[in-house]
C-alpha cells in the first residue's frame, strides 16, 4: 500500500496527508497494524490533516496522542481539519 496519510498515535482523531489528496478520493492508512480506509470530503493539501471520525463542536483535536486544540464547528469524518475549523487553546491573551 502506498503511504498517503499517517496516523501518529492510536488516540488521534486526525491523520496527516503525506501526498496532495483530492476531494472524493479514497485514502488508506495504517491504524496501528490495521489498514483503514475513508473517503475525503475536501481537498487535503500535502501535510494537512483530515478527520478520522465525526468530531463535535468544542471537542478536542488529538494528534501525537495529545490535544492540539478544539473544534469550533462540528467536523465530519473525512473533512479537512485546520485553522478554519479548529482553534488553539493556549497563549490566548485575547480571551481576557
Amino acid at each position, binding site marked *: 500500500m502506498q*503511504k498517503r496519510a*499517517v496516523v*501518529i498515535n492510536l488516540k488521534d482523531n486526525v491523520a*496527516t*496527508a*503525506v501526498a496532495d489528496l483530492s476531494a472524493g478520493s479514497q485514502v488508506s492508512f495504517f491504524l496501528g497494524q490495521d489498514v483503514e480506509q475513508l473517503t475525503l470530503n475536501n481537498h487535503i*493539501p*500535502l*501535510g*494537512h*490533516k483530515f478527520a478520522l471520525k465525526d468530531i463535535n463542536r468544542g471537542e478536542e*483535536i488529538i*494528534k*501525537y496522542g*495529545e*490535544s*492540539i*486544540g478544539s473544534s469550533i464547528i462540528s467536523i465530519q469524518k473525512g473533512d479537512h*481539519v*485546520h*485553522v478554519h475549523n*479548529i*482553534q*488553539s*487553546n*493556549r*497563549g*490566548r*491573551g*485575547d*480571551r*481576557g
Partner: protein
Amino acid sequence: MKFNGYLRSDGKVGTRNYLAVIPTSICSATVAFNIASQIPQAVALPNQHGCCQIGADHEQTINTLIGLGKNPNVAAVLVVGLGCEGVPIDKVAKNIATTGKKTETVIIQECGGTLKATEKGIKIAAKMAREISLIKAQEFPISELCLAVECGGSDFTSGLASNPAVGVASDLLIEAGGTSILSETTEFIGAEHILARRAKTPMIGEKIISLVQNCELRAKQLNVDIRGGQPTPGNIAGGISSIEEKSLGCIYKAGNSPIQGVLVYAETPKEKGLYIMDTPGQDIESITGMLAGGANIVIFTTGRGTPTGSPLAPVIKITANSETYSKMFDNIDLDTSSIISGGKSIDQVAKEIFQEIIDVASGKLTKAESLGHKEFGIYKIAPTF
C-alpha cells in the same frame, strides 16, 4: 567515538578555531566589523544592543556577550567598545579572560576615532590570528560535544520525521557522554507536561512547567492571541494548525533522554546530558543563547527551508521535505525525506545524522558556512530606554 577539535585553556574543546571580535554595543559594531574583515579566522558579532538597557535586560546582554567570548569555538577575543556604553567593556573582557584565552580591548573614544581604533584593532587581531593558527586540531572523545538542537520554518514533516530522527541522534550523543540543549520555550506550549515527566527531579519538572506558564502569561499580558505570531504563516501553510501541534512536533528533536536541568538564557550547563534553555522560539536569538551557553555545534531541522548559519558555530541543516531539499539545495545539508516515503527508518537516518555531526565537528564545512551565513541576535526582554 572521536572528533578532531581544538583544546582551550579551560579544558573545553572547540569544533572551530575563531578569533571573535565582539562589539560591546551597536555603536562599536562597524569598527568591529571592519577589523574582522581584514583578518582570516576573525568573525565580528553584529551586536545590535549594549546601551540604554536596564535591569535584567541589561544583565542578559552582558552575560550573552561574555558567554559568546567564552564559547570553546573561540580561540581569542578582541572586545571593541565605544567607551560610554552601558555594557562595561572591562568587565566583559575580564570575564572572558578567566577561561585563559587571550582577550584584549580596543576603545574607540580612547583611541581617538574610527581610523585609530581600527588600526589598533587590526594590529592586535593580526597578531592573535598568527598565535591561534598554532593551535592544532587533535582527537577528542565526542563527550566534548555540546549540541544545540534547533528547528525553524517547521511544517508537517518536522514533527513526523526530521525532529524524531534528530532526537535519536541527540540521544546517541548523550549516551556517549555528550551534552544537548533544547530551547524555544514558546514551542513547549502544549507539550510541557511531556517534558516535565522526563525531568531528572520533580523540582526540575516544576521549573519546566513554570517556564511555559511565564511565557504564556507574557502573551496574555499583551491581551493578544499568540496565534498572531505562532505558528507563523509559513507553519500554517505547511499544515500546522496551532502552537500545541507545533510544540508537540518540536520537542521530538530532544529525543527521550532525561532532562538534567533548566538554564536561563546564555547559561552554561553544569554537567553533561540533556538541558533545557529558556529562549524565544525565534531561531536566531535561540541559537545565540545556546552558543553563549557553550554549545559548540548546532543541528537545525526545517520543513519550509531556511538559510541560517552562525558566526561562532557550524549549523547543520536537515529537512524531511523532499521538495524543500531540492528547492533549497544550496542551504540544506541532509535530506531525511526517505523516512516519510518509506525507504529508511528513523533509526537508520539518525545514524547518518550522528555521523554528520561528527564529520562537521571535525572540520567539514556546512552549507551555511560555505555560503558565509552568520545570522546573530541577542534576545531582549525589555524595551530600550
